[in-house]
């Protein structure tokens, strides 16, 4: 009787310890993914330097790009590139590509072609950076484009 009770006690204890350990091991990875080793390359960081030249105005150059291959750092690099791009566009003396801009200005066809692969909340980092240079020019929405972009003026500020 005592032997049995002792055996049951040991079994329960082992289950508790084993369960806890298994849970801890399972949670060390991201949800839904098999835990795998991750190698972070810190010795050879990727330097992204964007220089956009404009004929008259002084171009804005990224002087201190964020380095590394972390997701947040990648995002930071993209944001920095956007900030510099907007600055260059704002001070550029050259005329805008008005015709190209009006082509599907709101459907962001050019951008959505590029980003369709990346969007979503999953962890999938796959996808190609296609469509960066392509100009699909799908759908000419005419003056509606102007209205919608400009109508957001009051809400945006």
């Amino acid at each position: 009787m005592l032997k049995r009770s002792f055996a049951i006690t040991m079994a329960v204890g082992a289950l508790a310890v084993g369960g806890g350990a298994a849970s801890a091991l399972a949670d060390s990875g991201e949800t839904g993914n098999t835990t795998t080793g991750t190698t972070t390359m810190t010795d050879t960081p990727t330097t992204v330097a964007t220089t956009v030249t404009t004929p008259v105005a002084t171009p804005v150059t990224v002087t201190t790009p964020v380095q590394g291959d972390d997701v947040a750092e990648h995002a930071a690099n993209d944001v920095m590139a956007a900030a510099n791009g907007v600055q260059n566009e704002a001070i550029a003396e050259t005329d805008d590509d008005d015709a190209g801009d009006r082509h599907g200005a709101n459907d962001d066809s050019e951008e959505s072609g590029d980003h369709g692969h990346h969007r979503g909340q999953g962890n999938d980092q796959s996808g190609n950076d296609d469509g960066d240079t392509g100009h699909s020019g799908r759908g000419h929405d005419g003056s509606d484009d102007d209205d919608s972009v400009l109508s957001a003026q009051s809400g945006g500020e």
Partner: protein
Amino acid sequence: MTNDIRIRRAGRILTLAVMVGSLLTLASTAGASNATLRVSVNSWSRTIGIDAHSVALAAQNRHPRRMTSSALRFRTDALRARTAVARQRPSTAGGKRAQKLALAAFTHYEAAAQGWAAAGRARLQGDRAVAGRRARAAAISARAGNKLLVAAGQVLR
């Protein structure tokens, strides 16, 4: 007498096992909360990076309308990211710190996006001076957001 000793020993072992199991379970739960936060921050960082890339692309192509609409999308996603990250419940001090950093980062990004949209609209109206000012202010916000997001990523690493 011998039976009493065995029963006491079994009881002690059972208590110890339950305590160890509980500790491991608690540790794994804490890890899971921070892992969820990391997934959320990484996921939204990716989305933000995609939107930023879209803004940069439009700016580079001299498409102020697209730049404005992309900036507005960036702003919407920054706000959504803030909401999603705020919903997380990190269990450790590091996790809480990372959450604060990420929230601050997305707030700065939201401000940057507003500046980009304003710059785009000013550019559309031919007001280069205003566009330049807005773009410069937005770049400051973007830079601040970048630092905070990278810091959050480092804490969560």
